[in-house]
């Protein structure tokens, strides 16, 4: 059996952390620069700043225009992509291992010497406008965005990372420059490389190209709070008369990633709604009742408490029944806990699936980024299976009682009101909700 490749760490002379994994299966390198601040630091009236900043970094440096950069990178068969996320902003550069030196140099150029070209910003804004207008045609996208805004009531995590149509005009190039100057600092960043390259060579290349970078700062304080105010539990309806199905989102506040109950809650949620056909929600809502093609529950593991959300869709006439049944499943798991067999199967799934989840450089890099973001320790992957195996049935039952709150569920339905409102009103009061 192939041994698990170790995560190696180095600190560059400017304080930037470098995490690397030597990967031998294909001649590839996945590089990623991560700034440990993301869309949660967007100014409240300017959603999209972190994500647009990331995008603009890829649209020209002080040495090369957007087209030159794209041509040179794609001539290597490589791909450059940047995005804002919650708690962090990422610049990825993936390519063939034979080009490692050039790739590291290129990533450093993009991160350290962006040109913030005026013309590219204007074009970016128009592209985003088009994308956001189009998003209204995607019921799933509409529901996800509307739920975040409804649930968080304007707190961080309560807007769309990629920006919002109603607040597009508020964003200017200066906002992006200011955000970059504040948040991009070596002390709050991590460079990750998973690839067919010996670690000492990687350290040398990283030191050569990133070592002199000082960045700006001081970075915003890291957001770790639970919001002061959330949506009142109940049923909210966003009317879309042309839809044949309803999109349903039901959620309440979850936990921060560093919560001591992380492992019991992961196992609990696998059993509740993340384990595909092994999950209670899938069994009831799809296999037994045939109400949907798919349903899942997710705890968003972030630096501050993220949402716990159940997502599904169902032909319009089934909407009220689905909402009622979902809530009942959550209540059952909370009251009666899970069985020993369910727990054993959830544990052996995660333990057995472990090597499959680390097959590709990109998947490994994702894990390493997460370890770097939340300071989970270099031995995290090595200890992952034993930690999961150590969780007891009592711990999972306690986790269900402490962290599932069916009475707090905020339910959002996006669908044709003419067909869904009356049946929903039989469950409880329905508040009409307007999309932004």
């Amino acid at each position, binding site marked *: 059996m192939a041994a698990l490749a170790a995560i190696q760490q180095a600190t560059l002379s400017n304080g930037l952390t470098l995490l690397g994994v030597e990967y031998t299966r294909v001649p590839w390198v996945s590089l990623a620069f991560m700034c440990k601040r993301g869309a949660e630091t967007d100014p409240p009236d300017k959603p999209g700043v972190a994500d647009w900043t990331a995008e603009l970094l890829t649209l020209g440096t002080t040495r090369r225009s957007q087209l030159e950069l794209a041509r040179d990178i794609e001539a290597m068969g490589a791909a450059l992509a940047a995005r804002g996320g919650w708690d962090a902003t990422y610049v990825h550069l993936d*390519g063939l291992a034979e080009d490692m030196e050039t790739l590291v140099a290129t990533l450093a150029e993009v991160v350290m010497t962006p040109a913030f070209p005026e013309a590219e910003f204007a074009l970016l804004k128009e592209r985003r406008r088009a994308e956001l207008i189009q998003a209204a045609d995607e019921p799933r996208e509409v529901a996800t965005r509307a739920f975040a805004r409804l649930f968080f009531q304007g707190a961080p995590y309560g807007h769309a990372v990629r920006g919002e149509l109603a607040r597009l005009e508020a964003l200017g190039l200066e906002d992006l420059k200011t955000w970059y100057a504040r948040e991009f600092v070596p002390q709050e960043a991590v460079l990750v490389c998973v690839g067919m390259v010996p670690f000492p060579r990687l350290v040398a290349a990283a030191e050569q190209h990133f070592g002199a970078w000082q960045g700006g700062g001081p970075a915003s304080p890291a957001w770790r709070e639970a919001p002061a105010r959330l949506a009142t539990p109940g049923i909210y309806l966003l009317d879309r008369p042309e839809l044949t199905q309803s999109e349903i989102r039901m959620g309440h506040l979850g936990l921060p990633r560093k919560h001591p109950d992380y492992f019991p809650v992961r196992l609990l949620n696998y059993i509740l709604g993340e384990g595909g056909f092994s999950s209670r929600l899938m069994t009831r809502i799809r296999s037994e009742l045939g109400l949907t093609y798919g349903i899942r529950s997710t705890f968003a593991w972030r630096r501050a408490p993220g949402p716990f959300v159940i997502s599904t869709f169902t032909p319009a006439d089934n909407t009220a029944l689905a909402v009622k049944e979902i809530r009942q499943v959550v209540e059952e798991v909370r009251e009666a806990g899970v069985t020993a067999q369910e727990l054993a199967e959830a544990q052996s799934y995660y333990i057995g699936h472990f090597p499959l989840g680390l097959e590709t450089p990109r998947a490994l890099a994702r894990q390493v980024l997460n370890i770097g973001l939340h300071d989970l320790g270099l031995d995290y992957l090595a200890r992952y299976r034993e930690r999961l195996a150590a969780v007891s049935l009592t711990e999972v039952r306690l986790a269900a009682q402490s962290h599932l709150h069916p009475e707090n569920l905020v339910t959002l339905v996006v669908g044709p009101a003419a067909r869904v409102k009356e049946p929903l009103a039989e469950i409880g009061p329905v508040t009409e909700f307007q999309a932004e």
Partner: protein
Amino acid sequence: MTAERALDPRAWNPEIAIVPFTLDNGLQLLVLPDATLPVVSVQVHYAVGSRHEAPGITGISHLFEHLMFRGTATLGPEEFSRRLQAKGGEVNAFTTRDHTSYFENLPAEHLELALSLEAERLKHLKLDEENFETERQVVISERKLRCVDSPFGLVEELLFATAYTEHPYRWPIIGWDQDLRRLTLEDCLSFFRRHYQPGEMLILVAGEAQPERVRELVERYFGDLPPGSHDSHRVVEPPQRGERRAVFKKVSQVEALFAGFHTVGLGHPDLYPLMVLAAILSQGRACRFYQEFVRPGRAAELEAEVYPPPWTSADPDLFIIRLVAAPGEPLSRLEADLWESLERLKHEGVTDLELARAKKLLRSQTVQGLAKTFYRGLMVALFHLKAGDGTLANGLLAAYEAVTAADVLRVARQYLREDNRTVVTLRPVSPEESQELGPLF
């Protein structure tokens, strides 16, 4: 291999090892031994997809794929998935126009469990009215999700229904709504008896497994199946003799256009220059479409797409161009400029830089794919099923490398002709107008 050599890209060998077997009952087995990771991908492919259906029973292959998870005499509904997932397995299936494929990617020590359960559901599938009805409703919901309520699902359906006049690629894999409602359990049972037998099967095991041991296991679990036949009937779509156009009206924020040109199937050498052509047009951000249309904000999306190997269909597929206008940009002008851009390419050809860039992008994609045991297996299996030779998967890197500028020019001129083109435009209407046009299904 020493650690140092293992980290040297020049020492890397891209070759996938393939060990073929045929059982006495005609069942074909391919083993791809690879000890890189302690995992195996077990794949059972049946040579039946939507192309083997007929009007009135469209969607039956895919609906049947769902029914294969509904249990046997000894397995409850979805217990098949649950048991394998409990060992760390990724369990799923998918239906295409040409085949239906079931797979389990899991720790190597559970190979036998996966094969025994696959045999169990093939031999003892339990189908009753109740199971069938539940799954019919699930698929109806899936159709609404993928096609009816999605921005362009029905537009793409209309493209295929217009581009193909005789070939069964005309109808969607998921089937027409009224056929899904009309199908009976008896239809499914006779479909099962006809297609789910050794003459139409390929089993593939990739990963940490000894070929002889795999053969023994497959013999043990599948060797007693009676031999079956293989249906090699092919339909040929007549050459298109002039452009076809259609309009689809729906609630939409944007105007859009889907165009399709008849090309080739998997196994035809022109596929590789067509892939290079599509990359030159629309892959990355230095490509023609991005620079001419997307970056300046005229198109929200503009993509040229060929289903890449091994996903290309067995019979001639479509080269699809998907154009979504930016808000406020008239589609008619965009369309004219799009065809003009293609004419320019057909007149002037492509530059050496464009060619080199596209080829390296395709090389990169191929290399990345080889990192996944599941995907290595799929490449070999789908080439075997659709092009008759699994070893073609090992020729991909060389095939892309061999493409010349002259090849790209030739395929652009040969396939991207107006007479060979079908165009469907999406015209936005208000919710009220949409309702006046009648129900969507």
